[in-house]
């Protein structure tokens, strides 16, 4: 036939298409979701991509016939929408293979049955042996481990050295301040006196003596703790609310507002209204997190010299306590990688996480976003001055308690702070309202003392 050659060509073409498939690698798509929401934390996602490249090389060497392709997103919008997306993803079965969230989510999601326990998988990978041991407590719930720590941080109180100098402090006094706070020699009352002094002497404007975060968050727990409050009873596994400590905390806030140290509307603002006065050098004390250092350096202080300006003007220490001789305190909220129940590639997922939990990637994220590393051997690789100087805070750190109803606890406390600062309730009324709200929403899982 005239067309014999045409048929032969077609058959060859089909064979050429089909045959290579038989020996091609199977590509597994791993969906990874990560969130900042601060921009510098993008390595939470990028590190997984790098780890996937390394894992692919290893898989090729093993001849496993599988290659990993990482897809997913790094969220910079906010926790609210991210957690909502996650919830819908879990329920629809279209969940990611690896999801990163703050460690309290391990309790909630474990209780809801959305993520798997990792106890059996962890011993298989020696990378996990290097994780700082205390961090495993943050991801434990009901005796099992539900996530792999991804990073940690600390939440210091920052102070403006230039303003303290204008107030009359000597350089030596300023250098001693972190030590005094750590020893319990400089308490919240001393913070109040210093800030009030600064306002009265016009070193700072009214309301700029002390700044704290403008949105809900876990930080209020550490400030409540620093006033002597308990929040968790390990024996019964229940949450606790200490009215006396809350009263002390609320009274401090109320006094601060009345004396012009703290703005009445501190809570009704957005983050730019926190960062702008801070980076203008107008705020004397402000509570924040170690990652704020990176945010300030990169996004607010570019024109002023970034890091240099910060080291020259801003000092940091763990948060003071309420009585002399007490112990300073800070809080860490480690982020963790978790594996949803709905994931179809759990073994590959944990292996990928193991490849992500290596010192060089840990250091890359820590230095890049001013979070703290989770691996003991990362310290050798980190030459960043800030991280070196701030890591002692980890000796004073605490975590949020592992309880599925922690969200209601936080919500009630936040409302109390908001009521006291805005003047809507007196400290005594606010404490009673918070206790009643906790009792109503958490019922028998909370102890009011």
């Amino acid at each position, binding site marked *: 036939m005239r067309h014999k050659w045409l048929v032969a060509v077609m058959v060859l073409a089909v064979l050429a298409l089909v045959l290579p498939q038989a020996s091609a690698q199977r590509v597994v798509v791993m969906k990874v979701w990560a969130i900042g929401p601060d921009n510098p934390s993008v390595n939470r996602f990028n590190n997984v991509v790098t780890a996937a490249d390394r894992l692919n090389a290893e898989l090729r060497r093993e001849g496993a016939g599988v290659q990993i392709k990482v897809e997913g997103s790094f969220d910079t919008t906010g926790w609210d929408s991210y957690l909502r997306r996650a919830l819908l993803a879990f329920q629809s079965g279209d969940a990611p293979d690896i999801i990163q969230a703050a460690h*309290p989510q391990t309790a909630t999601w474990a209780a809801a049955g959305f993520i798997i326990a990792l106890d059996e998988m962890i011993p298989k990978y020696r990378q996990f042996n290097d994780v700082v041991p205390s961090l495993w407590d943050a991801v434990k719930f009901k005796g099992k481990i539900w996530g792999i720590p991804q990073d940690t941080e600390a939440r210091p109180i920052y102070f403006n050295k230039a303003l303290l100098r204008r107030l009359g402090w000597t350089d030596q006094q300023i250098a001693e301040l972190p030590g005094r706070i750590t020893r319990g020699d400089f308490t919240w009352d001393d913070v109040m006196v210093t800030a009030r002094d600064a306002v009265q002497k016009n070193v700072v404007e009214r309301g700029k003596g002390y700044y704290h975060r403008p949105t809900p968050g876990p930080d209020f727990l550490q400030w409540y703790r620093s006033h002597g409050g308990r929040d968790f009873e390990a024996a019964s596994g229940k949450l606790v609310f200490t009215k006396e400590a809350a009263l002390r905390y609320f009274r401090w806030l109320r006094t601060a507002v009345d004396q012009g140290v703290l703005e009445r509307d501190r809570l009704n603002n957005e983050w730019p209204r926190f960062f702008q006065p801070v980076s203008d050098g107008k705020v004397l004390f402000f509570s924040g997190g170690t990652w704020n250092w990176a945010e300030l350096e990169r996004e607010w202080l570019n024109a002023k010299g970034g890091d240099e300006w910060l080291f020259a003007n801003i000092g940091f220490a763990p948060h003071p306590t309420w009585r002399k001789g007490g112990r300073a305190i800070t809080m860490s909220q480690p982020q963790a990688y978790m594996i949803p129940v709905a994931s179809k590639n759990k073994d590959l997922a944990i292996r990928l996480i193991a490849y992500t939990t290596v010192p060089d990637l840990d250091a890359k994220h820590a230095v890049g976003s001013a979070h703290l590393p989770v691996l003991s051997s990362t310290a050798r690789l980190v030459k960043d001055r800030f991280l070196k100087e701030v890591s002692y805070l980890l000796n004073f750190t605490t975590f949020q308690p592992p309880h599925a109803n922690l969200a209601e606890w936080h919500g009630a406390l936040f409302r109390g702070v*908001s009521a006291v600062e805005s003047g809507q309730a007196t400290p005594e009324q606010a404490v009673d309202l918070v206790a009643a709200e906790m009792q109503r929403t958490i019922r028998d899982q909370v102890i009011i003392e």
Partner: protein
Amino acid sequence: MQSQAEATPVRAGPVVRAALLQRYAAPAIFLLPATVLIVLFFLVPVFTTLYLSMTDISVLTFRNPQWAGLENYRTLLQDPFLGKIMLNTARYVGFTLLFNVGMGLVLALLSTSVPERYGNQMRAVWLLPRILPPVVYVLIWQGLSRDAPFGLISSLTGSERSFISGHPWAAIVLANGMVGASFGLLIFTSAIRSISQDLFYAAAVDGATTLQTIRRIVLPMLKWPILFVTAYQTLSLLTSFEYILLLTQGGPGFFTTTVWSLHAYNLALSNYFGNVQFGLGAAMAAVLVVIGIIVSVLYLRIFNFRALVAEPKIEVN
């Protein structure tokens, strides 16, 4: 004779049915798309909400929610802030409605009493808040309301505080009102324009002042538009909370400006700390549906809706 009487209904049955089918088939088919939409987007959500409100579904029980009966409603009744939230809702709806309808009326009267091209421009400007996306609109309000020395309002009034935190209710009513007034403005304007000019000439000839013209001629003709705008905006205000959410987040403090729908949203969907209760939020929403139905029926009764849609008594050929 008996057999005849018996025979008639038996024979008429299928015939009557066929006739009915023929008469209503075409209208039914024409109504079908709209009916499907109404059922899908209005009725199904109502029943779903009612169903959800009877379960204990939350983040923790998302996988296997249990039937809870009226437990959520009991929890709601025990909420110490429920009275405050109801009061806030009444305040919000009442004041904003007053502003919306009143301002819309005033603006309509003003813009129709000037030459048309100026009136058109004035109405176009007043439409701008409605056209802007709510977030952008609130950003502008936040910029205006910043505490001294950044905000325009604080500079003008001499107060130090942010206008929104200092007077949250005023900020909310004004922000919502400026958006809502344009709705009344458009409807009242078209109603005023449709009043026959003869009536105005007659009034002028009779020596009526402007105020009398408005009171005796314009307002009575606007009775139905005012009813419509009031009813529509009451229902829309009962369920809207986006400006409150953006402006004050329901604060400051313990539910100062939280309205019913905002509280339902917070319970059901606001996820900052990661644990929400959909069942409880659905219960609040279900109560809102019932309130909405009651309010609609009340309005229709008060303003005699039947008379509005009745056949006219005069036939014009």
